[in-house]
């Protein structure tokens, strides 16, 4: 029950982030490019909650985005699930205490997400692959996401550990002893 309520809460957070992305970051851009705060959010869930929980939220968030604005149903959902799984792997193998590690994770996830997403759209919708334009947009987006992570690192870590307590209390003990 507690986890279900947490799930509802995380979905509400996702909805709030959607409005931020659609309304605020649509205007607050670097050279006309917005960040992708959903990637940071899904990575955050993957790092601080258990894999099943994060995958379910990632799936719901992805389907919501695909339904609301996407052109192909399932692509975003699939990519969010992939991020969630990779984040779980990161959690087991890397320390979240390092700011640099988290930023590198965000950079990697942004590149993987946008590259696969774009390539899938190129294949499914038969769009010409514009490498130069895509690279330019991706570079700015990666930079923007990294800056946002740097700014909100402490906040992410603070809420992350609160969330982690609900999921990994037993695991933390076994991990260190």
């Amino acid at each position, binding site marked *: 029950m507690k986890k279900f309520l947490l799930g509802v809460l995380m979905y509400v957070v996702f909805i709030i982030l*959607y409005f931020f992305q659609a309304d605020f970051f*649509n205007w607050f851009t670097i050279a006309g490019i917005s960040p992708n705060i959903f990637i940071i959010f899904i990575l955050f869930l993957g790092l601080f909650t258990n894999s099943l929980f994060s995958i379910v939220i990632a799936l719901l968030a992805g389907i919501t985005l695909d339904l609301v604005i996407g052109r192909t149903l399932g692509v975003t959902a699939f990519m969010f699930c992939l991020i969630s799984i990779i984040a779980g792997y990161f959690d087991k193998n890397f320390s979240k205490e390092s700011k640099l590690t988290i930023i590198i994770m965000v950079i990697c996830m942004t590149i993987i997400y946008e590259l696969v997403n774009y390539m899938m759209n190129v294949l499914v919708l038969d769009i010409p692959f514009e490498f130069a334009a895509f690279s330019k*947009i991706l570079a700015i987006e990666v930079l923007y996401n990294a800056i946002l992570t740097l700014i909100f690192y402490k906040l992410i870590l603070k809420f992350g550990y609160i969330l982690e307590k609900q999921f990994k209390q037993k695991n933390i003990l076994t991990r260190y002893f």
Partner: protein
Amino acid sequence: MYKSKHSGTLGTVITIIILILLVILTNVNRDNLSYAEGFATSILMPIQNAFTMLKNRVTGNSQFFADLDSLKAENEQLKQRNNELETQLRELEVIKAENATLQEYANLTEKYQDYSTVAAYVIDKDVSNYSSNIIINVGSDQGIEKDMTVIADKGLVGHVISVTNNTAKVQVIVDSASSVAAMISTSDESIICKGSVENDKYLNASYIDTSSELLVGDSVVTSGIGGIYPKGITIGTIKQVINTTNITDRYAIVETAVDFSKLYTVLVIK
């Protein structure tokens, strides 16, 4: 009285030195003295203020303080009045904006009176950097169907790609997945206008006939081929013609008539 000749000369010299010092001190940049000035002010001004207040009370200028309460009350009244006026101003601004929107609708409907249209607001834009689709606030309940053409006051916006009861998703012509059959209005030469991932102002016009002569400034309109867009809707104007070594590969940049960054109201052609 005895007066020493030397003391008179000494007094003159001292006076000259003091004068020179005064001239120098009063002509140097005052910024250099700001620390000293600040220090002196902080010591002297509180005392000076106390003296001034005392003086005012003694000389009857203390009426100012007696009126302070009434001034405060007056100030409150003025603030309240100011708030009321600001509220009225906001209301007027809202009415003005509504009027502008209605005017825009009226102009649009008049311009495209040959078509049966439904007016709509743009309520959302794609959150991705790689596509530019929009969502409008009319759907199947208002008679909107897939593949209907969407226009704005200056020209073509795109077409409906999916519909819910009260919203419709529109693929705009600048989206990277968009492709519009078009023609040059002056010469009737057929071209294909494609969107790109990079910007929302220009289209790439390709499949240009080798014999056709495109000129910068030529107007580009829909050709009606493809079955989605009606013929003759303005797309934009030729901004630049890019010639390549192989003439069949040449293409043109078309500047869209519609400013997609400021797209708020549209019409859906039924």
